[in-house]
């Protein structure tokens, strides 16, 4: 395998504590190494440029049935943006829900090399894996959803943590999944009857359990297993005015629980797209930001991580396993609505949405996301996402970076809104003068996300021994830069390496790489009760047989990277 030395760039690496110092980075056999270990490297001159590890996205919806529904039911999302096959690149299309090929290439162009699909319905795991297989370059893993799963509801009703853990281990293996995802716990099951659980103490119809019990039980089961990632949560009451109290109530469920994982993470709960969960007021008229209350809690509790779910003010396609929320949204905007309820497991909905800067509520949402990040004391625990494509497409990450790094660009937005005064009055952003540094951006997009996922031993840093995922951006941090140059440079990497293979050369994609699928194989003690329950559920309630449920390796996961966990002790 070729050796490379990336010379003389401005390096940002929170793991190594490098804050823009000029340094050389060496790559050999797919890993970062000390420069002294190279014998005949190819030299990349990064003089005057920014060098970072490949970025890791902790939460995006990029593969699977709801994503594909988004593609197939929105031909308008592909107007004027389909591009032909050229060089190694396959045909590409789509804006808010791009095709798999465009997904891989666009992430690579932004310097991202690992992306987690944040919600996989277990029954559709094959579909999710087929899409990930056809997504070039980036390593991926998928989080199966557990928060409305009948096994989980029935075990946790009696607080059977060991059985829940055994079932989680079985399902992760069956679906080749990576982590425990929870979406609107209990509420999506209630949606099977057109109902919802609007707060964490609302009982789930027919199951004699509450969302609070589900969340707490799944945190405990997650720690029982010692999985690489923590329980990954989208809590109840998303998107409603006044919902910040539900969010705080949910955060409190993690209190007193410490991580039990050998993978180096410090949190037991990752709460996702918190922007959607930080709302005050009790209607759309007095809708306001409650980001200070949320961030006060996050800043003072180190067993929680969050991502922001930044609204980018685009037309996009919302999609979530929160079925009742999507019905609520289609009632609100009267646009088309797709819904799928999945037997025994979950549900989902898809609705197009236009975040218009002329609408007061959308502009307030935009401000809240930025406030969350700008009030964070520790950006190793607060991550950059757009909950792609829910709050905006992932290709806007460089634009979000611009807003976070430039007070000038934020103020231009705030003062330019149609309802500028009302937006400024309902938010706190105008009073925040903090500008994030590239080091902090590297925390939010690389070191922090890799750590929270339990993948710090592979990604997120340029430390010798880690995967040689590296991005070089045409951006000189020592120069006076206009805000726009941030967006331009970080959306268009000059060089990119994935596991030591050069993917981008002079802004051009030159390789499809050798993408891997990450999944977690958790070993647990034999549990005849759970195995009997599985067998019975398949016989009586599922419509596929147990023998046809497991995702076989071969062509669904042709290049797996299996993380072994031993929970037998």
């Amino acid at each position: 395998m070729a050796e490379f030395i990336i010379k003389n760039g401005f390096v940002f690496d929170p793991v190594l504590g490098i804050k823009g110092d000029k340094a050389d980075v060496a790559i050999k056999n797919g890993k970062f190494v000390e420069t002294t270990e190279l014998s005949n490297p190819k030299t990349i001159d990064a003089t005057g440029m920014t060098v970072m590890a490949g970025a890791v996205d902790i939460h995006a919806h990029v593969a699977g049935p709801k994503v594909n529904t988004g593609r197939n039911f929105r031909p308008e999302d592909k107007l004027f943006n389909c591009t032909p096959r050229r060089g190694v690149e396959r045909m590409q299309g789509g804006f808010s829900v791009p095709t798999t090929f465009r997904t891989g290439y666009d992430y690579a162009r932004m310097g991202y090399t690992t992306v987690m699909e944040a919600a996989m319905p277990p029954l559709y795991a094959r579909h999710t894996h087929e899409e990930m297989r056809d997504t070039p370059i980036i390593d991926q893993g998928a989080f199966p959803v557990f928060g409305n799963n009948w096994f989980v509801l029935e075990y946790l009703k009696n607080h059977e943590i060991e059985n829940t853990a055994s079932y989680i281990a079985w399902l992760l293996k069956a679906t080749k999944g990576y982590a425990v995802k929870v979406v609107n716990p209990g509420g999506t099951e209630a949606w099977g009857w057109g109902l919802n659980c609007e707060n964490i103490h609302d009982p789930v119809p027919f199951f004699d359990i509450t969302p609070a019990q589900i969340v707490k039980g799944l945190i405990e089961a997650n720690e029982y297993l010692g999985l690489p990632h923590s329980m990954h949560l989208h809590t109840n009451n998303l998107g409603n005015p006044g919902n910040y109290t539900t969010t705080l109530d949910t955060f409190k469920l993690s209190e007193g629980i410490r991580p039990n994982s050998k993978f180096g993470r410090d949190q037991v709960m990752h709460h996702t797209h918190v922007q959607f969960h930080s709302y005050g007021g009790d209607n759309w008229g007095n809708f306001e930001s409650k980001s200070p209350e949320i961030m006060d809690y996050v800043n003072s509790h180190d067993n929680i991580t969050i991502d922001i779910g930044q609204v980018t003010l685009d037309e996009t396609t919302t999609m979530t396993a929160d079925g009742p929320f999507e019905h609520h949204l289609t009632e609100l905007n009267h646009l088309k609505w797709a819904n799928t309820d999945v037997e025994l497991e979950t549900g989902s909905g898809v609705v197009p949405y236009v975040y218009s800067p002329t609408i007061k509520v959308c502009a307030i949402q935009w401000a809240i996301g930025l406030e969350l990040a700008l009030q964070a004391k520790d950006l190793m625990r607060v991550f950059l996402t757009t909950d792609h494509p829910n709050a905006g497409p992932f290709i806007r990450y460089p634009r979000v970076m611009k807003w976070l790094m430039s007070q000038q660009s934020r103020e231009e937005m705030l003062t330019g809104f149609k309802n500028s005064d009302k937006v400024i009055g309902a938010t706190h952003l105008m009073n925040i003068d903090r500008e994030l540094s590239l080091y902090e951006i590297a925390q939010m997009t690389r070191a922090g996300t890799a750590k929270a996922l339990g993948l710090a031993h592979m990604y997120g840093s340029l430390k010798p021994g880690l995967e040689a995922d590296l991005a070089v951006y045409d951006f000189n941090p020592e120069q006076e830069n206009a805000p726009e140059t941030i967006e331009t440079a970080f959306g268009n990497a000059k060089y990119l390496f994935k596991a030591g293979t050069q993917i981008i050369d002079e802004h051009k994609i030159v390789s499809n790489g050798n993408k891997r699928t990450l999944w977690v194989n958790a070993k647990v003690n034999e549990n005849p009760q759970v195995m009997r329950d599985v067998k019975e559920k398949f016989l009586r309630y599922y419509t596929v047989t147990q023998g046809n449920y497991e995702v076989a390796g071969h062509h669904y996961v042709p290049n797996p990277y299996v993380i072994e966990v031993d929970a037998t002790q």
Partner: protein
Amino acid sequence: MTKTIPDVVCPFCGTLCDDLEVVVSDDGKQLLEVYNACAIGAEKFLHSQAEDRLTRPRLAQEDGSWKEIGYEEAIEYTAQMLANSKKPLMYGWSSTNCEAQGVGSEIGEITGAVMDNTATVCHGTSLIAVQDIGIPHCTLGEVKNRADRVVFWGCNPAHAHPRHMSRYSIFPRGFFTGKGHKGRKVIVIDPRKTDTANVADVHLQIEQGRDYELLDALRVAFKGLPLPDVVAGIPKEQIYEAAEVLKSGRFVIIFFGMGVTQSLGKNHNIDEAIAVTRDLNEYTKAAIMPMRGHYNVTGSGAVWGWQFGFPFAVDLSRGFARYNPGETTSNDLLRRDEVDSVFVLGSDPGAHFPFSSVKKISELPSVCIDPHQTPTTAVCKLHVPVAFVGVEVGGCAYRMDNVPIETRKVVDAPEGMMTDEEFLEKVLGRIKEIKGE
């Protein structure tokens, strides 16, 4: 000794039953018995054992006779035809696995083909309607476990999807449906008195082609607003009653078939049927599902969705993906003389397209990949028999509710036969050589 293989998936219709048991000989070459399948599914398995089955490609001669050729020659012929076409039509894809569909897509990209599947003459209208208005949908297990109101509209599963009613929709007992069919009310809307209508609680014998009116009337009835005395041949009292039955259910499912998708109104019928379902979600829980025909037509729409962004009628001839049903659909292209060769895999347009289209296929350079002899193989210049997917080779297929299931290989194909995927891989490799990629 024989071996019994459990959990076999039936590669016939969109019901994709996966509980079949197949008995094969000890050497794995002979398929002896098929259990649990419907008559059509069992016949599909047993047909692979037909003694007169073709096992080698054959090329049509000028005098109308066929000449047996090797696979290598067939690959060369197919690759040359596609590589030298300006705009080939690559049609079918509904009776093969997703792996083959994926390889076919790349061939389509390189040759600038139009990729179309059987939805073009079946549920393509449903796909257009979904693009207009969306779709409240669910998996078949939700129907089994929750549904207490079941509507069959313009479809006849008793004949077309024979195990649908027993596995999913009318008879099974599920978690919340312990009384099975006794706890369900079944409404059939069909101008014909079908065998499905015979098991219904209510049969609304609608006038042919009046589906849109009746759907519209139901929406009016949901709101309790006045109706004319008779709509679509149905007295208003019956419509109010049907509306009440639906609104009073805990979980309503509407299944619909080609009786609505291909009758007057086409996609507008489905728009309205989905609107009925949306409306019902104001009162209770409701979902709607197309009765997809081929066992993997849904899969081809899924594969093209993630690769190109469109579920059928994908025109790649300009170098990027375009989609415009009516323009980029197979029959429109054939009848306007807009394609210069035809490649068919995994379907039988010869039996299902209008005669004018079939005549065009017969006049063009054409290749058909199919394990069977069909009306299509009869008009194409080259017929390449291949292994049966789901019998002699496995691979992923998508059920009518989009659930992917991996079909299983149960017996060996006759010696020396290729699979769809292998054949397409070879053709792709050869086209890359011809095009200098």
